[in-house]
Protein backbone atom coordinates (compact mmCIF):
# COMPACT_ATOMS: atom_id res chain seq x y z
CA UNK A 1 0.00 0.00 0.00
CA UNK A 2 2.81 2.38 0.89
CA UNK A 3 4.58 1.63 -2.38
CA UNK A 4 1.56 2.16 -4.60
CA UNK A 5 0.79 5.49 -2.98
CA UNK A 6 4.42 6.71 -2.84
CA UNK A 7 5.64 5.79 -6.32
CA UNK A 8 3.29 8.06 -8.30
CA UNK A 9 4.17 10.93 -5.98
CA UNK A 10 7.93 10.61 -5.64
CA UNK A 11 9.08 9.46 -9.08
CA UNK A 12 8.02 12.68 -10.90
CA UNK A 13 9.95 14.67 -8.32
CA UNK A 14 13.14 12.83 -9.29
CA UNK A 15 12.59 12.58 -13.02
CA UNK A 16 11.00 15.90 -13.93
CA UNK A 17 12.74 18.36 -11.63
CA UNK A 18 16.11 18.26 -13.32
CA UNK A 19 14.86 18.74 -16.86
CA UNK A 20 13.35 21.76 -18.45
CA UNK A 21 10.12 21.04 -20.21
CA UNK A 22 9.29 22.23 -23.72
CA UNK A 23 7.02 25.32 -23.63
CA UNK A 24 3.91 23.40 -24.69
CA UNK A 25 4.29 21.01 -21.74
CA UNK A 26 4.63 23.98 -19.40
CA UNK A 27 1.38 25.40 -20.80
CA UNK A 28 -0.24 21.99 -20.29
CA UNK A 29 0.99 21.77 -16.70
CA UNK A 30 -0.53 25.17 -16.02
CA UNK A 31 -4.00 23.68 -16.60
CA UNK A 32 -3.42 20.57 -14.49
CA UNK A 33 -4.27 22.03 -11.05
CA UNK A 34 -7.60 23.47 -12.19
CA UNK A 35 -8.51 20.28 -14.04
CA UNK A 36 -7.53 17.99 -11.15
CA UNK A 37 -9.53 19.95 -8.59
CA UNK A 38 -12.59 20.17 -10.83
CA UNK A 39 -12.43 16.43 -11.49
CA UNK A 40 -12.21 15.68 -7.76
CA UNK A 41 -15.09 18.00 -6.93
CA UNK A 42 -17.72 17.20 -9.53
CA UNK A 43 -18.56 13.64 -8.44
CA UNK A 44 -18.60 14.69 -4.77
CA UNK A 45 -21.12 17.43 -5.44
CA UNK A 46 -23.35 15.93 -8.10
CA UNK A 47 -23.36 12.17 -7.53
CA UNK A 48 -25.46 10.67 -4.81
CA UNK A 49 -25.56 6.92 -4.41
CA UNK A 50 -24.01 6.38 -7.81
CA UNK A 51 -26.11 8.67 -9.93
CA UNK A 52 -26.53 12.32 -10.72
CA UNK A 53 -28.94 13.69 -8.18
CA UNK A 54 -29.99 17.34 -8.12
CA UNK A 55 -32.93 16.82 -5.79
CA UNK A 56 -33.25 17.78 -2.14
CA UNK A 57 -31.85 14.35 -1.25
CA UNK A 58 -28.41 15.59 -2.28
CA UNK A 59 -27.71 18.66 -0.10
CA UNK A 60 -24.07 18.83 -1.24
CA UNK A 61 -25.19 20.13 -4.62
CA UNK A 62 -27.48 22.82 -3.21
CA UNK A 63 -24.99 23.92 -0.57
CA UNK A 64 -22.25 24.14 -3.20
CA UNK A 65 -24.16 26.89 -5.03
CA UNK A 66 -23.79 29.63 -2.37
CA UNK A 67 -20.28 28.29 -1.69
CA UNK A 68 -19.35 28.83 -5.34
CA UNK A 69 -20.70 32.39 -5.24
CA UNK A 70 -18.73 33.23 -2.09
CA UNK A 71 -15.55 31.67 -3.52
CA UNK A 72 -15.97 33.56 -6.79
CA UNK A 73 -16.75 36.93 -5.22
CA UNK A 74 -14.34 36.91 -2.30
CA UNK A 75 -11.54 34.46 -3.30
CA UNK A 76 -11.29 33.94 0.44
CA UNK A 77 -10.87 30.27 1.35
CA UNK A 78 -11.70 30.57 5.04
CA UNK A 79 -14.88 32.50 4.34
CA UNK A 80 -15.80 29.98 1.62
CA UNK A 81 -15.38 27.05 4.00
CA UNK A 82 -17.27 28.80 6.79
CA UNK A 83 -20.22 29.61 4.51
CA UNK A 84 -20.22 26.10 3.04
CA UNK A 85 -20.27 24.35 6.41
CA UNK A 86 -22.78 26.83 7.80
CA UNK A 87 -25.18 26.34 4.89
CA UNK A 88 -25.01 22.55 5.18
CA UNK A 89 -25.63 22.72 8.93
CA UNK A 90 -28.68 24.93 8.33
CA UNK A 91 -30.02 22.63 5.60
CA UNK A 92 -29.64 19.58 7.84
CA UNK A 93 -31.04 21.22 10.93
Amino acid sequence: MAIVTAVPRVVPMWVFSRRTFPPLVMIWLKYIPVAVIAAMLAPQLLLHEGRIDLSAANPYFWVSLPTFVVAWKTKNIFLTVAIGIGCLAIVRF
Partner: protein
Amino acid sequence: MARQIGVSLFETIFMSLIVYAGSSQILAIGLLQAGQPTPSIVLATFLFNLRFFLMSTSLAPHVAKWPWWMRTLFGYQVADESFALLSVKFSRGESHQNFAIAVHMTAYVAWSLFSLIGYLAGSLIPNINRWGLDFALPAVLIGLLFCLIQNRLMVVVAALAAGLALILSKYGLKEWAVMVPAVVAAVCGAGVEQWKKHHS
Protein backbone atom coordinates in the same frame (compact mmCIF):
# COMPACT_ATOMS: atom_id res chain seq x y z
CA MET B 1 -14.60 3.84 10.30
CA ALA B 2 -11.59 1.58 10.71
CA ARG B 3 -12.74 0.63 14.18
CA GLN B 4 -16.18 -0.38 12.99
CA ILE B 5 -14.75 -3.16 10.84
CA GLY B 6 -12.22 -4.37 13.40
CA VAL B 7 -8.98 -2.71 12.29
CA SER B 8 -6.80 -2.11 15.34
CA LEU B 9 -5.63 1.27 16.62
CA PHE B 10 -2.01 0.47 15.76
CA GLU B 11 -2.92 -0.58 12.22
CA THR B 12 -4.91 2.59 11.72
CA ILE B 13 -2.09 4.90 12.81
CA PHE B 14 0.53 2.89 10.95
CA MET B 15 -1.52 3.17 7.78
CA SER B 16 -1.87 6.94 8.21
CA LEU B 17 1.88 7.35 8.70
CA ILE B 18 3.06 5.09 5.90
CA VAL B 19 0.37 5.17 3.24
CA TYR B 20 -0.61 8.78 3.90
CA ALA B 21 -3.46 8.99 1.42
CA GLY B 22 -6.83 9.80 2.90
CA SER B 23 -9.02 8.80 -0.01
CA SER B 24 -7.01 5.60 -0.50
CA GLN B 25 -7.36 4.68 3.15
CA ILE B 26 -11.12 5.22 2.99
CA LEU B 27 -11.24 3.26 -0.27
CA ALA B 28 -9.23 0.43 1.31
CA ILE B 29 -11.49 0.30 4.37
CA GLY B 30 -14.49 0.13 2.02
CA LEU B 31 -12.96 -2.69 0.00
CA LEU B 32 -11.94 -4.58 3.15
CA GLN B 33 -15.48 -4.27 4.35
CA ALA B 34 -16.73 -5.64 1.04
CA GLY B 35 -14.44 -8.65 1.54
CA GLN B 36 -12.19 -7.89 -1.44
CA PRO B 37 -8.88 -9.80 -1.73
CA THR B 38 -5.69 -7.91 -0.91
CA PRO B 39 -4.24 -7.75 -4.47
CA SER B 40 -7.35 -6.07 -5.82
CA ILE B 41 -7.27 -3.53 -2.98
CA VAL B 42 -3.65 -2.71 -3.78
CA LEU B 43 -4.37 -2.44 -7.50
CA ALA B 44 -7.38 -0.20 -6.95
CA THR B 45 -5.26 2.00 -4.69
CA PHE B 46 -2.55 2.26 -7.34
CA LEU B 47 -5.00 3.32 -10.05
CA PHE B 48 -6.64 5.72 -7.65
CA ASN B 49 -3.26 7.27 -6.86
CA LEU B 50 -2.16 7.80 -10.43
CA ARG B 51 -3.60 11.27 -10.02
CA PHE B 52 -0.68 12.07 -7.73
CA PHE B 53 1.57 11.45 -10.70
CA LEU B 54 -0.03 14.48 -12.33
CA MET B 55 0.15 16.57 -9.19
CA SER B 56 3.81 15.79 -8.56
CA THR B 57 4.68 16.46 -12.18
CA SER B 58 2.90 19.78 -11.97
CA LEU B 59 4.74 20.78 -8.77
CA ALA B 60 8.14 19.42 -9.83
CA PRO B 61 9.41 22.44 -11.84
CA HIS B 62 8.83 24.67 -8.80
CA VAL B 63 11.09 22.62 -6.57
CA ALA B 64 13.78 21.85 -9.17
CA LYS B 65 16.50 23.57 -7.18
CA TRP B 66 15.97 21.60 -3.99
CA PRO B 67 18.33 18.76 -3.05
CA TRP B 68 17.06 15.31 -4.04
CA TRP B 69 16.26 14.05 -0.54
CA MET B 70 14.10 17.08 0.07
CA ARG B 71 12.25 16.51 -3.19
CA THR B 72 11.73 12.87 -2.23
CA LEU B 73 10.20 13.78 1.11
CA PHE B 74 8.22 16.60 -0.48
CA GLY B 75 6.87 14.25 -3.15
CA TYR B 76 5.98 11.63 -0.57
CA GLN B 77 3.78 14.17 1.17
CA VAL B 78 1.88 15.41 -1.87
CA ALA B 79 -1.82 15.34 -1.05
CA ASP B 80 -5.01 16.62 -2.67
CA GLU B 81 -5.49 19.67 -0.49
CA SER B 82 -1.85 20.66 -0.05
CA PHE B 83 -1.40 20.30 -3.80
CA ALA B 84 -4.27 22.69 -4.41
CA LEU B 85 -2.93 25.19 -1.88
CA LEU B 86 0.64 25.09 -3.17
CA SER B 87 -0.55 25.44 -6.78
CA VAL B 88 -2.16 28.73 -5.81
CA LYS B 89 1.02 29.91 -4.08
CA PHE B 90 3.34 28.82 -6.88
CA SER B 91 1.13 30.39 -9.55
CA ARG B 92 1.48 33.71 -7.76
CA GLY B 93 5.23 33.32 -7.65
CA GLU B 94 5.24 32.92 -3.89
CA SER B 95 7.32 29.79 -3.85
CA HIS B 96 9.15 29.89 -0.56
CA GLN B 97 10.81 26.62 0.25
CA ASN B 98 10.14 26.84 3.96
CA PHE B 99 6.48 27.59 3.44
CA ALA B 100 6.00 24.67 1.06
CA ILE B 101 7.70 22.27 3.45
CA ALA B 102 5.71 23.66 6.37
CA VAL B 103 2.44 23.06 4.49
CA HIS B 104 3.36 19.43 3.81
CA MET B 105 4.66 18.74 7.31
CA THR B 106 1.63 20.29 8.98
CA ALA B 107 -0.71 18.25 6.81
CA TYR B 108 1.25 15.06 7.50
CA VAL B 109 1.39 15.47 11.27
CA ALA B 110 -2.21 16.65 11.47
CA TRP B 111 -3.39 13.70 9.39
CA SER B 112 -1.74 11.15 11.66
CA LEU B 113 -2.77 12.95 14.83
CA PHE B 114 -6.39 13.21 13.75
CA SER B 115 -6.42 9.54 12.71
CA LEU B 116 -5.60 8.81 16.34
CA ILE B 117 -8.19 11.23 17.69
CA GLY B 118 -10.75 10.04 15.18
CA TYR B 119 -10.20 6.42 16.11
CA LEU B 120 -10.55 7.13 19.81
CA ALA B 121 -13.41 9.60 19.53
CA GLY B 122 -15.30 7.91 16.71
CA SER B 123 -17.67 6.24 19.08
CA LEU B 124 -18.12 9.28 21.32
CA ILE B 125 -19.55 11.69 18.78
CA PRO B 126 -22.72 10.14 17.45
CA ASN B 127 -23.25 12.15 14.28
CA ILE B 128 -20.59 14.64 13.30
CA ASN B 129 -22.21 15.22 9.91
CA ARG B 130 -25.08 17.01 11.51
CA TRP B 131 -22.87 20.07 11.93
CA GLY B 132 -22.01 20.22 8.25
CA LEU B 133 -18.32 19.53 8.89
CA ASP B 134 -18.24 16.87 6.20
CA PHE B 135 -18.55 19.70 3.70
CA ALA B 136 -15.21 21.21 4.80
CA LEU B 137 -13.15 19.40 2.16
CA PRO B 138 -15.37 20.12 -0.85
CA ALA B 139 -15.57 23.74 0.34
CA VAL B 140 -11.77 24.02 0.57
CA LEU B 141 -11.47 22.67 -2.95
CA ILE B 142 -14.11 25.11 -4.22
CA GLY B 143 -12.23 28.02 -2.61
CA LEU B 144 -8.90 26.93 -4.07
CA LEU B 145 -10.40 26.32 -7.49
CA PHE B 146 -11.53 29.92 -7.73
CA CYS B 147 -8.14 31.17 -6.55
CA LEU B 148 -6.51 29.24 -9.40
CA ILE B 149 -8.81 30.30 -12.22
CA GLN B 150 -7.10 33.11 -14.12
CA ASN B 151 -9.05 33.29 -17.36
CA ARG B 152 -12.08 32.03 -19.19
CA LEU B 153 -10.26 29.16 -20.77
CA MET B 154 -9.53 27.77 -17.32
CA VAL B 155 -13.25 27.84 -16.53
CA VAL B 156 -13.87 25.80 -19.67
CA VAL B 157 -11.08 23.37 -18.76
CA ALA B 158 -12.53 22.97 -15.25
CA ALA B 159 -16.02 22.36 -16.63
CA LEU B 160 -14.71 19.80 -19.12
CA ALA B 161 -12.76 17.94 -16.42
CA ALA B 162 -15.82 18.02 -14.15
CA GLY B 163 -18.07 16.60 -16.87
CA LEU B 164 -15.68 13.79 -17.75
CA ALA B 165 -15.13 12.95 -14.08
CA LEU B 166 -18.89 12.69 -13.60
CA ILE B 167 -19.31 10.34 -16.54
CA LEU B 168 -16.44 8.09 -15.44
CA SER B 169 -17.61 7.96 -11.81
CA LYS B 170 -21.16 7.27 -12.81
CA TYR B 171 -20.12 4.25 -14.83
CA GLY B 172 -18.03 2.72 -12.05
CA LEU B 173 -14.61 3.89 -13.22
CA LYS B 174 -13.93 5.85 -10.06
CA GLU B 175 -10.21 4.96 -10.05
CA TRP B 176 -9.79 6.78 -13.36
CA ALA B 177 -12.11 9.67 -12.62
CA VAL B 178 -9.41 12.20 -11.70
CA MET B 179 -6.44 11.18 -13.84
CA VAL B 180 -8.18 10.80 -17.21
CA PRO B 181 -10.41 13.93 -17.08
CA ALA B 182 -7.51 16.07 -15.84
CA VAL B 183 -5.16 14.97 -18.62
CA VAL B 184 -7.78 15.33 -21.34
CA ALA B 185 -9.08 18.70 -20.15
CA ALA B 186 -5.56 20.12 -19.72
CA VAL B 187 -4.58 18.92 -23.20
CA CYS B 188 -7.64 20.72 -24.61
CA GLY B 189 -6.76 23.87 -22.64
CA ALA B 190 -3.15 23.85 -23.81
CA GLY B 191 -4.25 23.11 -27.37
CA VAL B 192 -6.67 26.02 -27.47
CA GLU B 193 -4.13 28.39 -25.91
CA GLN B 194 -1.51 27.37 -28.46
CA TRP B 195 -4.01 27.67 -31.33
CA LYS B 196 -4.99 31.17 -30.18
CA LYS B 197 -1.34 32.22 -30.10
CA HIS B 198 -0.84 31.19 -33.70
CA HIS B 199 -3.97 32.95 -34.86
CA SER B 200 -3.60 36.28 -33.11
